[in-house]
């Protein structure tokens, strides 16, 4: 066990855990932030995606010791105009079905829109194909990203 101080959602939180503990478990079990989901544990589904700095990161595949001074933003902490546009588009399109994968989907969508102001269908497919949805809401996800891009002036 070791003590780690994390920059998380614009606050600072400390935890006593083994350094090789996946960040996902620290977020969910030690810090109570259960918006980030466990899907596969092998970086294959994207349900556990959080921001580490500006990078959408699979938290199941990142040991807490490797976070260092990086700033973590989970679905509970996303904010700003891009996040707000994505949220509105998600609601307007009624995107989620069961909802389990959606926090990861939204983080990846925000990352894409921050990188590409007006993404094409191909841009969306390339950015989002690491986020699986067993309800197959892919068509609504793609439409909502286009909606959010338009709202943001892309």
């Amino acid at each position: 066990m070791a003590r780690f101080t994390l920059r998380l959602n614009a606050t600072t939180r400390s935890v006593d855990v083994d350094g090789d503990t996946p960040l996902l478990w620290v977020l969910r079990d030690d810090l109570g932030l259960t918006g980030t989901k466990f899907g596969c544990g092998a970086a294959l589904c994207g349900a556990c995606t959080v921001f580490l700095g500006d990078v959408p990161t699979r938290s199941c595949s990142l040991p807490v010791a490797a976070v260092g001074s990086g700033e973590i933003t989970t679905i509970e902490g996303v904010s700003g105009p891009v996040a707000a546009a994505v949220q509105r588009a998600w609601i307007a399109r009624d995107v989620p079905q069961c909802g389990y994968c959606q926090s990861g989907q939204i983080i990846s969508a925000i990352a894409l829109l921050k990188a590409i102001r007006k993404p094409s269908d191909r841009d969306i497919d390339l950015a989002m194909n690491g986020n699986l949805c067993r309800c197959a809401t892919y068509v609504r996800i793609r439409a909502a990203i286009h909606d959010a891009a338009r709202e943001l002036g892309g």
Partner: protein
Amino acid sequence: MMPIRRMALLALSASVMVAAGAFGQSGDPQQAARSIALFREAGKVLQHPRCLNCHPAGDRTTQTDRMTPHRPMVIRGAKPEGFGAPGLPCGACHHAANYDESGVPGGPRWHLAPASMAWAGRSLGEICRQIKDPARNGGLNMADLLKHVSENELVGWAWAPGGKRTPAPGTQAEFGALMRAWFESGAACPAE
């Protein structure tokens, strides 16, 4: 075929005896044959899945010893080249070191080789000529190239890939010695 370790030892001793030649073919048929033999030995590394997976043909990388298409689908990406698509960069999953808990490999600055350095599907002779061509090797001269193959940490990952991944044969130091001996024997390339 001679084991890579013994070949590397021979290469090390030979590099002392053979004067550094120009970055081209030797005029001496015996030396050229020897140079090609050294490169063929180095080719066991260059054409190993640990190397080819990140030097793919086309934009999409492969994975595992069987070189199956990467899951999820990732592409080389353009800005910066080799680090994946916006929204799904290599760094989304791959970090500075292998992570046994998730089984995801990692190494410093994990990324794909540029398209100009695609090796998968090419013959050893084609790879050889590609490596020697600064227009297709990232603008490296031979000294830079030898340093890259001998010391680069991401190249070195191929010998410590973790999990059930088969390491590249030999060691990075032995590979570097083979490449140096190849260069010093005239850097001859196999026809095919």
